[in-house]
């Protein structure tokens, strides 16, 4: 049995998450990945914004920074630039990273700074009671979209790819083993890496949209999942409403702190 407690601030338990919330599965996958890489707890700096998912940093025994809503990525960028030897991991929600923090998200990808973003995508604002998020599918209900969301939603992995991220993977909490692998790869990757994790929020999203409890929503994730290899042979129509999982991007690009170091060395001459 994996000893999760080694990485937890046990006096802060229990976790705040609802029964059926998928966030705990992501937490576990992440801890296993960190353990596998063999990182010392003090070599890791974990930064989060505000939201249910972002509360994660309160429970894990790393150097943690719980910042303001949407600002985890720029904060983490500052940390990484000041102390490049740290492994910097950002824990964030779909609202945190792609609504209020959307600008930071794309610019960090453009810079290709070596931080890893674990993006909990539950298609909703959980913490504040179920308002629409940039990833709420069109037509789905939210407290601020009582007649159904009239807006198009983001493909947030695609966004990171287009903006220049070195590594992008998408997983779901239904498939925790591959998820752990994606997270491990993402952390090991030099450059900006994103793991988008599809995770259910039965309380603020499932209930309003009649999607059942956490277990039912996880089962639905399984049904909607199409691995990348299979998706490549399918048409756009067939892929409508599907979740394409796998490593979507894995490329080598110059990394920002490296570039910066080179610049410094050049001037030292």
């Amino acid at each position, binding site marked *: 049995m994996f000893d999760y407690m080694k990485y937890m601030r046990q006096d802060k338990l229990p976790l705040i998450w609802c029964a059926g919330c998928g966030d705990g599965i992501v937490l576990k996958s992440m801890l296993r990945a960190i353990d596998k890489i063999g990182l010392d707890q003090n070599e890791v700096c974990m930064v989060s914004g505000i939201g249910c998912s972002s509360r994660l940093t309160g429970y894990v025994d790393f150097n943690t920074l719980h910042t303001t809503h949407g600002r985890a990525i720029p904060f983490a960028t500052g940390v990484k630039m000041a102390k490049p030897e740290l492994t910097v991991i950002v824990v964030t929600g779909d609202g945190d990273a792609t609504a209020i923090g959307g600008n930071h998200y794309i610019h960090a990808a453009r810079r290709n700074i070596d931080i890893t973003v674990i993006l909990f995508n539950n298609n909703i604002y959980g913490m504040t009671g179920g*308002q629409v998020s940039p990833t709420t599918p069109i037509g789905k209900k939210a407290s601020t979209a009582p007649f159904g969301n009239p807006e198009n939603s983001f493909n947030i992995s695609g966004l990171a790819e287009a903006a220049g991220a070195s590594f992008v993977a998408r997983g779901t909490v239904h498939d925790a083993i591959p998820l752990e692998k994606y997270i491990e790869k993402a952390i090991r990757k030099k450059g900006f890496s994103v793991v988008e994790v599809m995770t259910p929020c039965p309380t603020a999203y499932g209930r309003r949209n009649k999607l059942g409890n956490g277990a039912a929503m996880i089962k639905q994730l399984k049904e909607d999942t199409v691995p990348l290899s299979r998706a490549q042979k399918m048409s756009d129509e067939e892929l409508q409403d599907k979740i394409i999982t796998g490593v979507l991007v894995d490329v080598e690009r110059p990394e920002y702190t490296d570039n910066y170091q080179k610049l410094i060395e050049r001037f030292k001459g």
Partner: protein
Amino acid sequence: MNGNTTKNDDVSIVLGGAAGQGIQTVEQLLVHLFKASGYHLYATKEYMSRVRGGSNSTELRVSSKPVRAFVNRMDFLIPLDKDVLKRLNSRITDDTVIIGDKKKLLGKNGDESLDIIDIPLSDLSKEIGGAIYSNILIVGALTAIFNIDQELLHNQLQASFGAKGEDIVAKNIKAAKIGYGYGQELASTGKVKVNVTKGQKVEKQIVIDGSHAVGLGAIAGGCNFIATYPMSPSTAVLTFLAQQGERFNIIAEQTEDEIAGMNMALGASYAGARAMVTTSGGGYALMVEALSLAGAAELPLVVHLAQRPGPATGLPTRSEQGDLLFALYSGHGEFPRIIYAPGSLLDAFELSQKAFNMAEKYQVPVFLLTDQYFVDSYYNIPKIDVSKYKNENYIIKAEKGYKRYEVTENGVSPRSIPGYGPEVVIADSHEHDEEGHISEDHDNRIRMVDKRLRKQGALLTDAIPPLREGPDNAANLVVCWGSTYQIVQEAINNLGRDDVALLYFRQVYPFPSNTLDYFRNAKNVIVIENNATGQFAQMLHLFPHIEVHQNILKYNGLPFSVEEVEKELNQKLK
């Protein structure tokens, strides 16, 4: 407590439990039932920043007379779990009647000194069909104690749970009946007794909370555009206007962040909409750049700022009056503004309605400053006669030669909107001339600054004076603003002294020209605020030059209670 308790005609009931245990449902049911039964009622809640678990509570006051403020006293405590007893322990007195599941509450090593009237909620609810029925058992028991018509209760259960199917309704009614039996037993044996009588025509009145009062006022003020980003405790105004959107032609947009929200609202305002944003401190911080744009472009805008304790994320679900000076000084550059701070639900409605008209009339941003306590508190008020509230149109046609920023005596330039009349309408964030074109001319700069600042004087003609209650020559003057009003009012009434007057400001900026008059006879000026630095007292000192003798401040994240204010005043009154 000795088991035989007669309560007076103003009873406070506190329900406590974890998030997700359904206290909200009980609260809603009871609020409706008490009101429909003709009792005056008041309710407020305090909750932790988490969706599940934790420990939250709701206070309901049921009374023969109108009640409008938070009291510390708990006549009844209904804890749904052990944590509630622990957390509210300091409020439990010998007079508190605790009703609940004794076995569950005391457990193995519970506090045996607590006398708990037992209703075996766990066992009973399990039999009915699940723990969630505990809530309805409680509702049933309370309706017996307060002598509420059972048909009313059953109809309400039908209305609340009908959508979930007949089986669920039947189980709820069963739970209500069993609970009622327990309540009746307590009432008939005289173990628990209340003396609340029905008020006049209460059943015909409405029950709303602060958010709805602001939202209804906005609708009455002609609001037809809200763009904002959700942030506790301000979000209910957005949700409400989104729900009412179809009926009242309101565009409600949840934006990607507060920066976008405020700029969208300004764009809509430029185009002629009556626009607003609703937010809290952190979100407002992001809107501040755009506030300055509103100042430069002279665009009408209403900002509902529901305060919560900062700095930064602070205490997301708690209350504070900590952003008054922030609202006052926010935005770079110098430009006029109005700040209202309602202290009653009717004031919230009226000020919200007025805010839209003042924003249009003077082309300035108007703030409505509330806080978590205020937006989450509700009570019954008479129906509002909306026809009494008129909206003025201040938009004119842009005829040939129209100048958007024409220099006028009172600084207010005639305002037109794009597409209305043959002339175009220009706005620029730079300094501009009368037509709206960029200008770096220094004389023009002076003309424009003066023109904008003249509005600050002009809008004083519409200033709302503070409300003074109590004897004219009272030596003690207790000053409050916004949400503390009705708490302080009740405290002063309880003190029953003839040398104390209350002065309540609902327009907190700018100060009406005759503000000093209200302070003439006062020898002891005490300012009460829900913040740590006495922000309003600072403003009183700075603007009308009033000497404040003492402050009563609270900043632990909770609102004042009536008793607390009484106690503080007892020490500070001369």
